């Protein structure tokens, strides 16, 4: 399954070998000092650098005037839109500002990671290489979101941040009391069981975060590859538009869930 070729059946019923390899594992591109860089990691770094440059070129508060003009309006609208959205969820201006960097970065990084896989050439421009005695096609660009390493890393960061902010807001004891409830106290054994379930839930968050994002983006890439090999013109266009939308939605879901979990973790036990 890992590196299997895809067989397609067209209407004749004869198996047609499409010359494409869709691997759920990111392919290694090159290695630096024994460290193998995959195409997904490569694109993640490229997206980060391009994104940073774009942000640094456009967001320049030192040069901004009190009365916004031109591009400053757009930048301010984006910032204020994101911030007021977070304020709506947290119902707290200070918390919104506290969570802003993490959530905004997740949103932007996931969004552009998702969309980077839709660029022309992603998955199609590559090199043929002999690998384990087999001829392999290795695309140079692969959406970082279509690699479990990226989605798992991001989920871990998100979930650990949730724990961190939870402890920061409630203290270690207060936060731990969400998960460890003594069986001889208020809701008794039920409370204890629910607490432990919540602890398991925190771990499950990592899985659901990472597989949701990976699954959606990877499935989209498979779908587009298949559509392109079946009918190369026009027909894949609606699917491409749909994948743009899916990329936006997944970025929104990832960041939205992160801020919701952050809010839940920092709320006191009685409040939720």
């Amino acid at each position, binding site marked *: *399954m*890992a590196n299997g070729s895809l067989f397609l059946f067209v209407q004749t019923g004869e198996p047609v070998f499409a010359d494409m390899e869709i691997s*759920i*594992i*990111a392919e290694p591109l090159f290695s630096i000092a024994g*460290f*193998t860089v*995959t195409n997904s*990691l490569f694109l*993640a*770094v490229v997206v*980060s650098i391009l*994104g*940073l440059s774009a*942000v*640094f070129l456009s*967001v320049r*508060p*030192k040069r*901004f005037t*009190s009365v916004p003009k031109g591009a400053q309006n757009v*930048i*301010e609208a984006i*910032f*204020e839109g994101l*911030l007021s959205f977070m304020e709506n969820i947290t119902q707290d201006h200070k918390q919104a*500002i506290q969570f*802003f*960097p*993490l959530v*905004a*970065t997740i949103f*932007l*990084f996931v969004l552009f990671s998702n969309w980077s896989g839709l660029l022309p050439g992603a998955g199609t421009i590559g090199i043929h290489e002999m690998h384990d005695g087999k001829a392999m096609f290795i695309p140079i660009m692969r959406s*970082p979101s279509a*690699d*479990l*390493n*990226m989605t*798992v*890393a*991001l989920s*871990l*960061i998100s979930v650990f941040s949730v724990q961190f902010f939870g402890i920061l807001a409630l203290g270690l004891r207060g936060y731990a009391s969400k998960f460890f409830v003594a069986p001889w106290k208020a809701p008794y054994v039920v409370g204890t069981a629910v607490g432990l379930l919540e602890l398991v839930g925190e771990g499950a968050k990592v899985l659901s975060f990472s597989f949701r994002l990976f699954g959606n983006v990877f499935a989209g890439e498979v779908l587009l590859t298949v559509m392109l090999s079946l009918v190369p013109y026009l027909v894949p266009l609606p699917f491409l538009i749909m994948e743009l939308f899916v990329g936006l939605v997944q970025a929104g879901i990832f960041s939205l869930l992160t801020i919701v979990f952050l809010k839940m973790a920092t709320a006191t036990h009685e409040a939720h």
Partner: protein
Amino acid sequence: MEILKQIGIDGKLLLAQGVNFLVLLFLLHRFAYKPMLEFLEKRSAKIEEGLKNAEEATKRLDDATRNEEKILSDAREEARKIVNETRESSEKRGRELVAEFEKKAGQIVEEARERATEEREKLFREAKEEIADLVIATTEKVIRERLDSGNDRQVVSRFLADK
């Protein structure tokens, strides 16, 4: 662990992706989010202050207008009061003066009448005496020839007193 390898999870790559994201987060936070949020915060504080100032100014203006109206109406009231007082006192004074003059005029008339009466009586008295003298003289002249000069004067006086 075999399953992790099969789905492509690799410790080093995982770490690399995580580091990539954290560096991105740090740089964005340090050079974009923080200054930008501070900028926006500062400006909204400024706008809020400006609005508050404007509100206060409006309130003060209202107060001033109200004050002005109050002062004006007070002044009008005062003026009316002064005018009324003046009119009243002048009317009173006028009445007093008229009464005084009337009284004085009455006195003068009274005096004049008294004097006239006196004068008349005096004249009357003098005339009486003169007439008496004249009558006596005349009567004397007339009767001298016939009467004794002892009784005639008494007789004439009696005539005059009887009238």
